[in-house]
């Protein structure tokens, strides 16, 4: 699977070829999305070994069930759904770890309380190296609860629609929206600690 003469070919054409048994076409689909699927798996599982398993299982399952892919969604959305299911399964298996809870959390409204309000400097991310920035962004995501994390990763990093995210996670659209808002606000708060303009501290609020 080392040929990349298929790099410019349309995704749906590759899927048709792969479904007809063309392993090179399937290899090209893997190459297009393996980086994103691995990142998604790492974000959701927060564990590199699990993420590697999820990556393999995702493409194995996709290959196995390719004939069930009807083409009414994008191929990428379809494999994301497989990857999320595999990743959430890993989390559930690790449920003895008390920090992992996929159950509905009780809505007290407390996690939408905004504690820190400070304007950020201009392009604060430009002040940091790629590695430093990556470290800050990853650890902020890591601190979110698994379901908030999954919603944020699918909506704002993988750029799925609200409906696609709801379908992938087995949640209602309103549940996706409320979790997304909380995830965004919590991340905003965490990043504010790094990016706020110097000398510009919190106002009293709410």
């Amino acid at each position, binding site marked *: *699977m080392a*040929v990349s*003469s*298929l790099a410019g070919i349309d995704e749906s054409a590759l899927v048709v*070829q792969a479904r*007809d*048994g*063309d*392993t*090179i*076409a*399937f*290899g090209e689909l*893997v190459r297009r999305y*393996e*980086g*994103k699927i*691995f*990142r998604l798996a790492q974000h959701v599982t927060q564990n590199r070994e699990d993420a*590697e398993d999820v*990556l*393999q299982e995702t*493409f*194995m399952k996709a*290959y*196995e069930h390719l004939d069930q892919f009807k083409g009414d969604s994008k191929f990428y959305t379809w494999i994301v759904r497989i990857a999320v299911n595999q990743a959430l399964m890993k989390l559930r298996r690790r449920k003895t770890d008390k920090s992992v809870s996929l159950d509905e959390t009780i809505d007290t409204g407390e996690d*939408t309380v*905004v504690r820190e*309000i*400070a*304007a*950020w400097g201009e392009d*604060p*991310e430009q002040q940091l190296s790629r590695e430093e*920035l*990556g470290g800050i*962004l990853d650890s902020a995501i890591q601190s979110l609860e698994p379901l908030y994390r999954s919603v*944020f990763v699918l909506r*704002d*990093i993988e*750029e799925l629609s609200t409906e696609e995210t709801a379908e992938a996670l087995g949640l209602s659209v309103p549940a996706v*929206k409320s979790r*997304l*808002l909380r995830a*965004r*606000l919590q*991340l*905003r708060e965490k*990043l*504010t600690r790094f*990016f706020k303009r110097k000398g510009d501290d919190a*106002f009293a*609020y*709410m």
Partner: protein
Amino acid sequence: MLTCKDFLSELSDYLDEKIDAELRAKLESHITECPNCWVIADTTRKTIQIYKGMEPYPIPPDVESRLMKALEKKMAAKQKPADSVRRT
């Protein structure tokens, strides 16, 4: 009049531009008068932009090679000889 709490509850849809013109006008008039909500909206928008701009790291070579090996094995098992025509 919108309260800050009303503003926050619409913040995601506002940033995603998923609201009608009437509500948008109300939210925008709120943030011209409320510096706190303006800052929250601005920094939340920047938060989303920063994450969206994040490119995935290249997949580590050892992970990639294990993935390809596993897939090749699976494909070889599934392939019938008549199907193994390679098109490039």
